[in-house]
């Protein structure tokens, strides 16, 4: 099925501060698009615009879900979630006092997801056996890596067709960064997801990327259609590899 996002000439900001300037990018169906950029260049704002949490001043965001086009700028966040676009927010944003299971169930708040919550809970526990062992444990007592699994699991409770992950590596030990990125890649294959991932960790992100966009000062500075193209980019060398 065709599940993709097309962003055209998007500009957005907060008050007088311009954050995004004429950004266009595509997340192709069944692929992983990676949004690369260091702090403060507009990655999170772009994601907020897609999720309807931030109103852009110009441009268009269109999502195709099962081949059907939807104008995301006309929808509220909950309607966008209902379409099957799941977000794993930056910094995980879990409910620390609640247990693993309660956090996951909160991901199934939408009526459509609520009906299938038991099946989806099983799927999440199959995907992350570690969470099944700890289902009754408050999230606050878990490691950062495990918390990231819960955050991913919570988004999966919606049965998303498009998964948006904002900086999964934040606050994680290097070994967990690699594992988290692997899991996202695996999920993409098993569930046939379309993935948009914002990430600062270039080396890790690029391992699973089909397309890469480098965002600098709110503009797309480079688009890499393959891993090689990304690896060989002058700009990326300069920004990330210190060459």
């Amino acid at each position, binding site marked *: 099925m065709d599940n993709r996002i097309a962003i055209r000439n998007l500009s957005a900001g907060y008050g007088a501060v311009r954050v995004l300037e004429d950004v266009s990018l595509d997340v192709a169906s069944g692929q992983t698009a990676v949004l690369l950029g260091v702090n403060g260049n507009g990655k999170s704002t772009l994601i907020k615009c897609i999720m309807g949490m931030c109103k852009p001043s110009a441009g268009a965001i269109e999502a195709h879900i099962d081949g059907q086009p939807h104008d995301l700028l006309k929808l509220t*966040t909950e309607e966008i979630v209902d379409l099957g676009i799941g977000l794993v*927010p930056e910094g995980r944003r879990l*409910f620390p*006092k609640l247990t693993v*299971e309660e956090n996951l169930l909160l*991901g199934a*708040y939408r009526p459509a*997801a609520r009906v299938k919550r038991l099946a989806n809970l099983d799927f999440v526990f199959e995907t992350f056996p570690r969470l099944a062992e700890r289902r009754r444990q408050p999230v606050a007592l878990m490691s950062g890596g495990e918390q990231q699994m819960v955050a991913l699991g919570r988004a999966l409770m919606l049965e998303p067709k498009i998964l948006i992950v904002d900086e999964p590596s934040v606050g994680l030990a290097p070994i967990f960064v690699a594992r988290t990125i692997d899991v996202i890649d695996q999920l993409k294959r098993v569930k046939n997801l379309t993935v948009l991932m914002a990430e600062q960790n270039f080396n890790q992100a690029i391992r699973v990327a089909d397309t890469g966009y480098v965002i600098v000062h709110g503009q797309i500075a480079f688009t890499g259609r393959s891993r090689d193209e990304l690896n060989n980019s002058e700009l990326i060398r300069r920004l990330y590899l210190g060459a």
Partner: protein
Amino acid sequence: MRMPIFSLLALVVAAALFAAFLAIGNEYLFFAGYVVVQYVVIATAWNILGGYCGYVNFGTGAFFAVGAYATVALHKLQNYSENNFPPAVAEVIAVIFPLPIPVLILIGGLLSGIIGLLMGYLTLRLRGVFFAIATLALAVVLQTLVVNWDYVGGSRGATILRPPTTSLFGMDYIHYLFALMLLLAAISIIIARGIERSTFGYGLASIRDDELAAEAAGVPTLRLKLACTAISGALMGMAGAPFPYYVGYVEPASTFSLIYAVNAIAMPMVGGTAGWLGPLLGSLTLGSLQQIASVTISSEASLLLIGVILVAFVVLAPRGMLGWFDRLRPKRKGMVATGGGH
């Protein structure tokens, strides 16, 4: 099926309390009890927005006053219509008015519910202290409007003469008001508990704990918050609607008094904000203490009392009286995925 049993129980307790007051036979009990029970409604209403959803409302006085002034406006309509409306209209009004108090309560609730909705629309994008300031501003704006509205007496206030008995079985008026307020308290507690255990309530809790995460999970945050301010505001207005008949004289400064806002916050804080029981415990203890202090020391002392108690609780028992029992209770069971009908 636990819901109807709880509702029934709440109503039975309210009825039993009324019967006990009648049996004791001290008229002053009804006067003092009315104020305490009124605070049960106000504290419960405040907690629906403040405790469940995490938005601190400083405008309780405004919602309360909207209910009270709706009653004053309708009470005055009868006399006003005789002199100012065409005779045909005045006749119709003379037949319908004075409106029975339960109807006034509903009208007051409706009006303050609408004001809650409007306030929510204007201010719910603000968080934390900014929302609190905005609600405080609402109270000032409404008070200014009422002070300049001559029809309801402006800053002079309005006197409401109530008959000594009601048409309802010739019941004593103050008994009648007390019974109505008890019923209202039971209803607000039933509503609060219902919200707490519903999907709506879980949504509110997720907004309180992390609004962005709630949005990412598809919780319709704005809609839930609007419903929440409307319900909370409506209950506060309902508590205020019978007030003019209780005091007999209403003027803006005391009706919009900050004491309502302070009590509405202090009572749930002292009791515990997590559930319906906290505001009930808090309002019963603080409300009764205030009444006792007013009689034995002075009415000014009652204010001092709340201040001291609130400070003590914030410092020593931040989770309220219910926090004391947390250690005694068995560890709470997780929400089981297979349970619950929704």
